[in-house]
């Protein structure tokens, strides 16, 4: 008996439309809120760092002396208290107040930036505006503003930063506050700490220029990135529209091809229903043959539309749901009942129900096509066995569909999932095969991370084993 195992990996680089659609020129409130929460968490980390710094100041006199840093400083505690209070206010405004014009995510973000800048200015003032790297932390705020705000808004942040730092330097230079000395760095270590006008000017020009350059570079990069995002969004919209148009075209063609067949078959049903008087059995037999060929053609036309839709669905993320395999199998058996009754084919089933996460329509396509094939390619009065079971060791679930029909030759096995593939033996047995059914199965299996094993021998039958991954067991076997 020949065997073959089909596996379709989903690791290829499929485009994530849903994620791409979220990106736009302006950030949505949803994204702003996510950023606000991230900033709040980041600020808690800063508060924790400040508290540790405060403990260090109070307990480590020797290292402080070695670092030439003054002892008994309390500014880290003060700033951490201010930042904690502000954080609580941001959370309160975000989660416990009604959104309004003055309580929008954007306003929240602005409040955070301004309060942070004031706190940073206080820190810079206390630790030394020209003798420590503290002023460089302004760059962080400029960069964040460039990323999260528009260019104009980030320019406003830059102006606030430059203004704050300039006022700080001017005030520390003795023009407004007499006798300033940095409190963090030991005065002995920096003998001429008293700020001269030249030194103030040097720091003011150099650091403000640095702020301006950083703003220009980051905002420029931000503009480029946002332009790319906008183009991406437009491209995705065009792809989506093209897919919609393609689907509509497919529907139109399907309709135009199928409508005449439906009119013919409706008339046949009218005659068979006795609405046109009595007809002879010979005529009924001829009508049945016409109807059978028409039904085959109709199925082919609808399968072509299904195939196109399934191909399109590989580029989109349809809703994944948990599906009961037992319910799906029962639905498929129900649909096939007229055929199985007509040919006296018995469907034996021993089902252990389990849940699989996937696209319900596509899982139905897989089961319906494989069970339908098992029935189609069985001999009359035969039996088709359907069993399902869960393997608790690797959380896989299998559905086995075994027939005792015409089977598949070994040379044909690798091709059975190809579009419009017909094996000569299959055509002899079933003239109305569309050659599409297993192509639909292949795409649906790929979309839902399902593997399929096939074992077959000519004139002995075929067993399809559908392997589902990460299943959830529901209950015991039902027969």
């Amino acid at each position, binding site marked *: 008996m020949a065997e073959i195992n089909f596996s379709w990996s989903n690791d290829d680089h499929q485009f994530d439309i849903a994620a791409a659609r979220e990106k736009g020129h302006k950030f949505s409130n949803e994204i702003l809120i996510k950023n606000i929460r991230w900033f709040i968490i980041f600020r808690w980390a800063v508060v924790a760092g400040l508290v540790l710094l405060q403990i260090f100041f109070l307990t480590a006199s020797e290292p402080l002396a070695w670092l030439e840093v003054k002892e008994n400083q309390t500014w880290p505690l003060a700033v951490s208290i201010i930042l904690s209070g502000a954080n609580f206010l941001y959370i309160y405004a975000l989660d416990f107040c009604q959104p309004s014009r003055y309580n929008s995510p954007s306003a929240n973000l602005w409040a955070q930036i301004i309060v942070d800048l004031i706190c940073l200015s206080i820190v810079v003032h206390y630790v030394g505006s020209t003798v420590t790297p503290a002023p460089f932390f302004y760059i962080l705020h400029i960069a964040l503003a460039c990323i999260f705000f528009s260019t104009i808004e980030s320019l406003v942040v830059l102006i606030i930063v430059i203004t704050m730092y300039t006022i700080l330097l001017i005030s520390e230079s003795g023009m407004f506050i007499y006798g300033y000395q940095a409190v963090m760095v030991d005065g002995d270590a920096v003998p001429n700490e008293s700020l001269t006008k030249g030194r103030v000017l040097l720091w003011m020009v150099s650091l403000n220029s640095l702020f301006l350059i950083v703003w220009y570079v980051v905002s420029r990069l931000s503009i480029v990135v946002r332009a790319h995002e906008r183009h991406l969004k437009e491209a995705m919209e065009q792809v989506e529209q093209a897919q919609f148009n393609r689907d509509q075209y497919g*529907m139109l063609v*399907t309709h135009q091809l199928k409508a005449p067949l439906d009119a013919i078959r409706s008339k046949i049903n009218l005659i068979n229903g006795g609405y046109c008087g009595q007809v002879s059995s010979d005529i009924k037999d001829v009508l049945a043959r016409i109807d059978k060929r028409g039904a085959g053609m109709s199925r082919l036309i609808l399968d072509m539309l299904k195939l196109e839709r399934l191909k399109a669905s590989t580029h989109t993320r349809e809703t994944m749901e948990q599906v009961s395999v037992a319910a799906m199998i029962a639905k498929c058996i129900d649909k096939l009942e007229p055929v199985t009754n007509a040919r006296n084919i018995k469907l034996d089933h021993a089902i252990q129900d389990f849940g699989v996460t996937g696209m319900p329509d596509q899982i139905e396509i897989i089961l319906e096509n494989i069970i339908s094939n098992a029935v189609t390619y069985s001999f009359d009065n035969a039996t088709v066995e359907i069993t399902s079971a869960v393997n608790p060791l690797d959380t896989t679930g299998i559905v086995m569909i075994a027939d005792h029909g015409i089977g598949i030759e070994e040379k044909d096995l690798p091709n059975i999932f190809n579009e419009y593939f017909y094996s000569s033996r299959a055509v002899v047995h079933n003239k109305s095969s569309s050659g599409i059914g297993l192509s639909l199965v292949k795409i649906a299996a790929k979309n839902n991370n399902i593997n399929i094993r096939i074992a077959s021998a000519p004139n002995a039958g075929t067993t399809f084993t559908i392997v589902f991954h990460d299943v959830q067991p529901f209950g015991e076997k039902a027969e």
Partner: protein
Amino acid sequence: MAQRIAHIDDDPDIRDTVRRILVANGYEVDSYHTSVDFINSLNNPESVPDLAILDVMVESMDAGLKTYLELHERFPEMQAVFMTSLGDMILPYFADKSQEWVCIIEKPVEPTVLLSMIRDRLSRNPQKTA
């Protein structure tokens, strides 16, 4: 009094088939070639049917869907079923609509299925049940 059914389809063979089946089973049938004809007929209160059988693609790709929405707005009590060659392939176009209101019969017309569906739908409107 016979229950009134409106049938809209641009295919004369389908219109004829449905009319024969329904008339033979005691219904009064108004057949329309286009959705516009049907919608215009609704201006006359006496022409308002108990149930409408709509085709999806009549004048345009989505004429049947538009008619369906207009009926839902103007006559929320009126039952409506779709009869289309596309069967449930049109379901994606009803993503936001109640499944309770959407009933699809796939062509070809099968007398017993058609009658069963129509009886079921009409029974949901007790005031108009004969």
